[in-house]
C-alpha cells in the first residue's frame, strides 16, 4: 500500500487572510514612479532598473489581445492594483524567524509539514516577497542554488543575467511585459552539471492582500546532465474585488539535463491568472511541464518548450477544471528548432455548469528539420449541458520529414452514468467526482505520487457542491 503522508489540501483551505502591516507598499496604480519605488526598495542594479522601465513602456504600448483572447481581460483595472507589498527583503531560513501572521498562514496551508514530509527545499512567498526559503544542506554542498529571484540576481549575477529574459523576451506578450516591469519574488534555481536532485523543490505562492497583483519571476537552470523537479502551489483568499497574478517562468535545460516543472494552482474564483511559461531545451535535454489549473476567474497559460538542440524533448501534461464563472484558457507551445526533437502534449479539460475551457496549441516544425515528432491529445469532459469547450490547435509542419499526430475528443458525463453509480449507493457528488477522476486517471498516473494524491483530493473537493 501507499506510504504517502495524508496530505490535506482543501478547496476552501486557502480562503482566509490575516490583517498584515506591510513595511513597503508601492500604492495603487502603475507608472514610472511605481517601477522606481520597487527598484529602490529592492536595491536593483541599474541594468534591472533599465529592464523594468523598458518593459513598462512595452506594456503600456501593447494592446490587450482581445482579438483572440477573452474580452474579460478588459475588466482588469490596472489603476486599482497594488504592485508591491512586503515586510522586508530577506527571506528567513527557519520558520521561527518568519513573522507570526505570515507563519500562521503557511502553517494553515500545511507547508512546513510537507517540507518535513517529502520536499528537498521550500520557498514560501507572501504577496511580493519570499518570507521563507530553505533547502536541505546536502544540496547546497553539491552546489545547488535555490533562492528568491532578488537574491539570485544579486549574488549570482554571472549565471542569472546570462539567461534572465532570454527564454521569454520582455515583449513576448502584454503580460510578460507587465511582469518584467514590476516583478518581485519567485525562485532562482541552478543545478550544477551532473547533479540529480531526487526530491522536488517547492515554491508556494500566497496572495494575502486585496487589490493586489503578484508578479513573481522564476528562472531555473539545469546544467549539463543534471536533473531537478520543481513544484509550485498557489492560493489566495476570496476577496470582493479581483486579484491579478501574472508570473513569468523561464526554464533552461542544458545538454542532457532533465527538468520537470509542476504546478498546483488552486486560485480563488476572482483571480486573473495570466502567466507566461517557457523552457529552452538544448541537445538531448528534456523539459516537462505538468500543469494543473483549478480555480481562478480567467487563466491564460500556454507552457512551451523550444527544442533548440538535436534530440531535445518537450512535454506538456495539463489538466484544467472550469467551474461556473471560470474560464480556463490553456494549452501548449512546442517549437521544434533542431533535428530529432520530439514533443508530446496531453491536455484534459473539465467544464462544469457554466464553466468554460479552451485549448490553444501551437506546434511548429520548420521545413529544414528531419525526424521530428509531435503527439497532441486534447480531451474535454462536459458536466451539465451549459458548459462550453473550444479547441484551437495550430500545427505548422513544413517539409515531409517529420511526423505529427493529433487526437481530440469531447465527452459528457451522462445522467445515465450518474444514475448507475448512484444505484450502487454512491452519492451524486461522489459519482461526479469518480467520473472526473476516471477521465484524468491515465494522465495522473504519469505524475509524481505525492502530487497525484493531492490532485485527486482537490478534484473530489471541487466536485462537492457542484451538484445543482
Amino acid at each position, binding site marked *: 500500500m501507499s506510504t504517502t503522508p495524508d496530505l490535506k489540501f482543501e478547496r476552501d483551505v486557502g480562503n482566509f487572510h490575516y490583517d498584515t502591516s506591510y513595511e513597503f507598499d508601492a500604492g495603487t496604480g502603475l507608472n514610472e514612479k511605481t517601477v522606481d519605488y520597487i527598484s529602490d526598495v529592492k536595491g536593483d542594479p541599474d541594468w534591472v532598473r533599465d529592464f523594468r522601465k523598458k518593459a513598462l513602456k512595452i506594456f503600456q504600448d501593447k494592446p490587450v489581445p482581445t482579438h483572440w483572447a477573452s474580452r474579460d481581460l478588459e475588466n482588469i483595472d490596472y489603476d486599482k492594483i497594488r504592485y508591491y507589498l512586503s515586510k522586508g527583503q530577506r527571506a528567513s531560513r527557519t520558520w521561527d524567524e518568519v513573522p507570526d501572521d505570515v507563519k500562521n498562514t503557511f502553517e494553515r496551508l500545511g507547508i512546513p509539514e510537507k517540507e518535513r514530509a517529502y520536499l528537498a527545499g521550500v520557498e514560501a512567498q507572501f504577496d511580493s516577497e519570499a518570507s521563507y526559503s530553505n533547502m536541505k544542506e546536502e544540496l547546497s554542498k553539491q552546489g545547488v542554488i535555490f533562492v528568491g529571484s532578488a537574491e539570485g540576481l544579486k549574488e549570482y549575477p554571472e549565471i542569472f543575467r546570462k539567461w534572465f529574459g532570454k527564454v521569454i523576451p520582455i515583449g513576448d506578450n502584454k503580460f510578460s511585459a507587465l511582469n518584467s516591469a514590476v516583478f518581485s519574488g519567485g525562485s532562482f534555481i541552478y543545478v550544477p552539471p551532473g547533479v540529480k536532485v531526487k526530491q522536488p523543490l517547492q515554491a508556494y505562492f500566497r496572495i494575502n492582500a486585496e487589490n493586489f497583483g503578484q508578479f513573481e519571476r522564476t528562472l531555473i537552470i539545469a546544467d549539463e546532465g543534471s536533473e531537478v523537479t520543481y513544484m509550485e502551489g498557489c492560493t489566495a483568499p476570496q476577496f470582493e474585488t479581483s486579484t491579478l497574478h501574472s508570473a513569468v517562468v523561464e526554464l533552461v535545460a542544458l545538454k542532457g539535463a532533465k527538468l520537470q516543472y509542476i504546478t498546483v494552482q488552486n486560485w480563488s474564483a476572482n483571480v486573473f491568472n495570466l502567466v507566461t511559461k517557457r523552457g529552452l531545451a538544448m541537445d538531448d535535454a528534456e523539459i516537462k511541464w505538468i500543469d494543473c489549473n483549478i480555480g481562478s476567474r480567467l487563466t491564460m497559460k500556454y507552457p512551451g518548450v523550444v527544442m533548440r538542440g538535436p534530440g531535445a524533448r518537450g512535454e506538456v501534461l495539463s489538466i484544467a477544471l472550469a467551474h461556473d464563472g471560470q474560464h480556463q484558457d490553456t494549452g501548449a507551445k512546442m517549437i521544434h528548432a533542431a533535428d530529432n526533437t520530439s514533443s508530446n502534449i496531453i491536455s484534459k479539460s473539465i467544464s462544469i455548469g457554466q464553466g468554460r475551457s479552451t485549448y490553444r496549441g501551437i506546434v511548429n516544425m520548420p521545413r529544414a528539420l528531419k525526424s521530428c515528432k509531435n503527439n497532441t491529445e486534447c480531451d474535454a469532459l462536459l458536466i451539465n449541458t451549459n458548459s462550453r469547450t473550444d479547441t484551437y490547435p495550430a500545427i505548422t509542419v513544413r517539409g515531409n520529414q517529420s511526423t505529427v499526430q493529433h487526437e481530440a475528443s469531447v465527452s459528457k458525463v451522462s445522467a445515465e452514468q450518474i444514475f*448507475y453509480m448512484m444505484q450502487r449507493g454512491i452519492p451524486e457528488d461522489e459519482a461526479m467526482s469518480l467520473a472526473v477522476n476516471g477521465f484524468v*486517471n491515465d494522465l495522473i498516473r504519469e505524475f509524481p505520487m505525492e502530487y497525484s494524491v493531492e490532485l485527486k483530493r482537490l478534484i473530489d473537493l471541487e466536485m462537492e457542491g457542484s451538484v445543482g
Partner: protein
Amino acid sequence: MNKLEIKNLNVSINDTPILKDFSLTVPRGEVHAIMGPNGTGKSTLAKALAGHEDYVITGGEVFLDGEQIVGMEPDEISRSGLFMAFQYPSEIAGVSIANFIRAARTARLADGEKLSAPDFYKELYSRMDLLKIDRAFTSRSVNEGFSGGEKKRCEILQMAMLAPKYAVLDETDSGLDIDALKIVAEGVNKMRGPDLGVLLITHYQRLLNYIVPDRVHVMFDGQIVQSGGPELAEKLESEGYDWVREARADKLVNA
C-alpha cells in the same frame, strides 16, 4: 416485516402512465419472476423502484422491510438495501471495477469507519472465484469494452459485494449466450437464501430453467394480470402471451 411491498404504484414517463396501480409483495428469501411482452412496463418497474428521476411516481408506496423508499434519492435506496442489475450497464472510463466497488462499499460505512483494503480485496477475490471471473478483470474500467456476458457478470459481482436485501434483475438474460447465462444463473443461485429477495424481470422463460422461481407473475399493460408457480412460466413458453392479452381483454369487457 421482511418483504419488499409495492402498493398501488403509479408511474409515468413524460406524463404517459406506464404502471397502473401496480401491487406486488416479495418476501425476503424468495425469488419472484415477472414476465410479460415488450412494452408492458417491466423495466419501468425496475427503474422506478431504484428512484430514477425520469420515472415519475404519481401514486402508491414501496416499502423495503417496512421503510418507505418512494421519494428517496437513488443512492439512499441502494444503501437501504435495494440493488438493481441493469439491462444496459453504463461504462465509466478510467474507473476500475475494484475502485468502483470500493467507492460503493465506502459509501455504506458510518462516519469515521474505514474500509480495510486487504479485507476488501480478499472478499472481492473470493467472490470472483465463485463467479469464475478472472482476477485481471478488476483492473479494467467499469463496463468499458465489455462483452454482453462480461457486463452481466460484472453486475452480479457488484451485487455479491454489496449484499443487498433485495435485488431487481432487469432482463439480465438479454444478450447472453447459453454459457454466459448459466454462469450468471449460477451466481444468483449461490446468493439465494433467507437474506435475499429477488425480483427477476425477463421476457423469456429460458432464464427460469436455471433460476427456478418461487412465484411467477405475468405483467400486462402496467399491472400484474396473473400469478402462479413455476408452471406458469412453462405455460407462457408453450402458449405465448396471446392468452394473457385475451384474458385481459375479457377482464376489461366484463368490468
